[in-house]
């Protein structure tokens, strides 16, 4: 009975692998071709800009404290009033702001970028395509 269970389990695991591999390959191809939305920048471009970029972390404080892009400043919607002062003090206005959140379909980076543009009248604020997940190479 154990042998039958193991044989069938192996077959189910292998069957699931087929669509997973196809889906993974398709997603890799799509990721490269996916167009940028207005106000977004690709990681490769932001990396080329090097020290001229100021990373802005729009995720929660807990996530920021655990891991972040080196040199990033924390600025999120939940603690906006508390964080915006220190953020403005620390930001060198010659640097382009690139905001990121988790990645996937997270909206926090777009919300913080919109607020930077609207409330603080800062022009040229960009959002990192793919977010922190992209930075991690996912």
């Amino acid at each position, binding site marked *: 009975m154990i042998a*039958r269970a193991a044989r069938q389990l192996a077959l*189910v695991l292998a069957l699931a692998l087929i*669509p*997973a591999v196809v889906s993974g390959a398709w997603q890799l191809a799509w990721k490269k071709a996916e167009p940028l939305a207005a106000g977004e920048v690709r990681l490769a471009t932001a990396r080329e800009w090097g020290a001229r970029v100021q990373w802005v972390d729009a995720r929660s404080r807990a996530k920021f404290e655990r891991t972040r892009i080196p040199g990033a400043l924390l600025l999120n919607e939940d603690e906006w009033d508390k964080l915006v002062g220190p953020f403005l003090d620390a930001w060198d206005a010659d640097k382009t702001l690139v905001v990121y959140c988790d990645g996937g379909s997270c909206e926090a980076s777009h919300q913080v970028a919109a607020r930077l543009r609207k409330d603080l009248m800062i022009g040229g604020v960009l959002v990192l395509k793919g977010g922190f*997940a992209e930075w991690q190479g996912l």
Partner: protein
Amino acid sequence: MAGLVIAGLRLAVAGVFLYAGTLKIWDFTHLRSATPDFTIAIQNFRLLPSPDLALLLAVYLPWLEVTAASALFIRRLALGAATALLGLSAVFLGAVGSAWWRGLDIACGCFGKENAPTDFRFLLLRNTALLAAVAVLFLHEWRRPSPTPPHS
């Protein structure tokens, strides 16, 4: 009567895993792949040593859910499917319990991207019920005679 209960359980368990797996594969709200969101959900549990592993699991696990749920209806694969779903249910329950124990404030990601904060007690109850249902199916398949008679 027992046959009816097993048929109902099979339908319910398959439905839950098909639904959960599909929502982890495709984001119907944004009409895009749900893999990035599921990768992040897995990472948030802080159980894996590397983000790459989270990505691999995010690609594979939903398809395993869908495949195993479908295979529950194929006599020659039902025991293997129930075994896979039993393992998945146990892993999910363990992950949720561990997150609750460590006081993590994270979304479950069980049914695709979820923005609402997780009610861990409800989640533990739900996952325990699911594990129990899958265990009943597994035991049923385990005791069921093999579909092919042994060669004489």
